[in-house]
């Protein structure tokens, strides 16, 4: 069920500020692709163009193509809501819906998209929570508020919520940046498990994390202050972290800037 994503010449703006310029990247299914780079290099902007979340920001716009198994998600007649249902997203800060129980959080995407049938929804909730590795911890208190969980559990709840609608791709925008080291490792294990079923793209600040979880790494950078971000180099993670082709990549991964 995982699908391939191809971004072709993606350029994105916030108002008059150009955040990224002609980013072309091919993301393979059943792999984890990490996007790394210094702050403000546009990796978060880029990942948000992959499921049309970029356009949610007032004044934001983009050019270029994003193909999901060959179909342009920005094509005529393709609705943003359909795109987001097949390309899920997990955010920096765990953001469970505060008014909903654990069960309702996981079921939210299904219910609010019009899925009916208690047994189908209950099955989906259990399946998603198991996939997210959270079932054993919460199965006895599914009616408790999602906001009552620990930070790491909340983030796994958000992952369960994202995969409950059965997307083909899972985008993760620095999913561990607000978590403690133990929770971070749990999430990283989860990512490794999930890649059997999903195409996974992860933005991370943490280079050890990229090295641990990803198969392919893309390094983003900007030419200077105020300039748009571009992809400097992309390749197998093992190669990027041992002998990168570009000297800027080498400078970044050895900690000389960023």
């Amino acid at each position: 069920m995982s699908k391939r994503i191809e971004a072709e010449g993606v350029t994105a703006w916030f108002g008059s500020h150009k955040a990224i310029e002609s980013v072309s990247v091919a993301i393979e299914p059943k792999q984890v692709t990490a996007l790394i780079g210094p702050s403000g290099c546009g990796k978060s902007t880029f990942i948000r163009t992959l499921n049309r979340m970029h356009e949610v920001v007032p004044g934001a716009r983009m050019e270029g193509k994003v193909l999901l198994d060959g179909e342009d998600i920005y094509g005529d007649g393709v609705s943003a809501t359909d795109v987001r249902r097949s390309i899920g997203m997990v955010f920096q800060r765990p953001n469970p819906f505060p008014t909903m129980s654990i069960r309702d959080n996981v079921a939210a995407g299904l219910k609010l998209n019009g899925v009916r049938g208690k047994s189908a929804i209950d099955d989906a909730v259990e399946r998603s929570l198991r996939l997210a590795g959270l079932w054993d911890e919460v199965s006895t208190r599914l009616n408790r508020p999602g906001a009552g969980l620990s930070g790491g559990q909340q983030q796994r709840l958000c992952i369960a919520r994202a995969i409950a609608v059965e997307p083909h791709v899972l985008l993760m925008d620095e999913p561990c940046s607000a978590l403690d080291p133990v929770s971070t490792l749990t999430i990283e294990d989860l990512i490794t498990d999930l890649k059997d079923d999903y195409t996974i793209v992860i933005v991370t600040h943490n280079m050890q994390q990229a090295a641990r979880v990803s198969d392919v790494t893309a390094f983003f950078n900007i030419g200077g202050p105020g300039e748009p971000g571009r992809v400097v180099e992309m390749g197998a993670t093992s190669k990027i972290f041992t002998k990168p082709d570009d000297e800027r990549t080498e400078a970044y991964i050895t900690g000389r800037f960023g």
Partner: protein
Amino acid sequence: MSAALGVGLGGVVSASTRRRRSVVNAIACTALGASVVIALIPLALVLGYTISKGSKALTGSFLTHSMRGVGPLDGTGGAYHAIIGTLEQVLIASLIAIPLGLLVAVYIVEYGRGPLRSAVRFLIDVMTGIPSIVAGLFIFAFWVLGLHRGFSGLAAGLALAVLMLPVVVRSAEEMLKLVPDNLREASYALGIPRWRTVVSVVLPTASAGITTGVMLAVARVTGETAPLLLTAFGYDAIRTSPAKGPQSGLPLFVFQQAGSAFDVAVRRAWAGALTLIAIVLVLTVVARVVAGRSQLKAN
């Protein structure tokens, strides 16, 4: 503080200067504390006097009888008709102002763009400052005279809705703004359309705060007298239909009884005032309790 100052600036600041400053500080802080006490004295006096006067006059018969056929010197009669009128008028106002106000707030926070949004926000501010008597005059000119509908509880409900609308909008707007954007994003990222996001994620998250604002708005208009004078006009008997002819309302009843020269009427005014203040204060206090349970905290 002054000890540290003494060590650091011992040679510069004389002891007498230090003493003078600390005396000024003590006087000023006492004055500020006293002003809190002064502010609370009228609250205690108004509540205490109304309770003591009102509790003597408030009887079961007062709450269950109207003023129909009650002569100027009769000690009988009550506010039943006025309480019915107030319930109907406030209900009408709420049915109009709460849904409309929520929609306006949703427009301002979730959808509004450019000059129309600025204009709507500005006009809501303007409406907040409209004196209640002017709202009454408007409905009198528009509904009672302009559309030849005459005085009625419905007209009063419309006037109260004009006063309630900006209060509902402002409080709902504040609460909607407190809903973190990351919840909206989480919803969009699940492929949930915008309108469902607003209805099923944003509004429930803000619901405690919005409920508080709505209850305070209801409390405010429940106590309004001036618009009722020009729209409901007042009536001595029970009139259950808000659309047919003049009606009374509890605040209007209190005003009309208070204006009488006879003691029996003034007693009824106090009983009515106590009833009114009880309704309004209960609404206000419950609203504050609901606010305390809100998941959204303003900084």
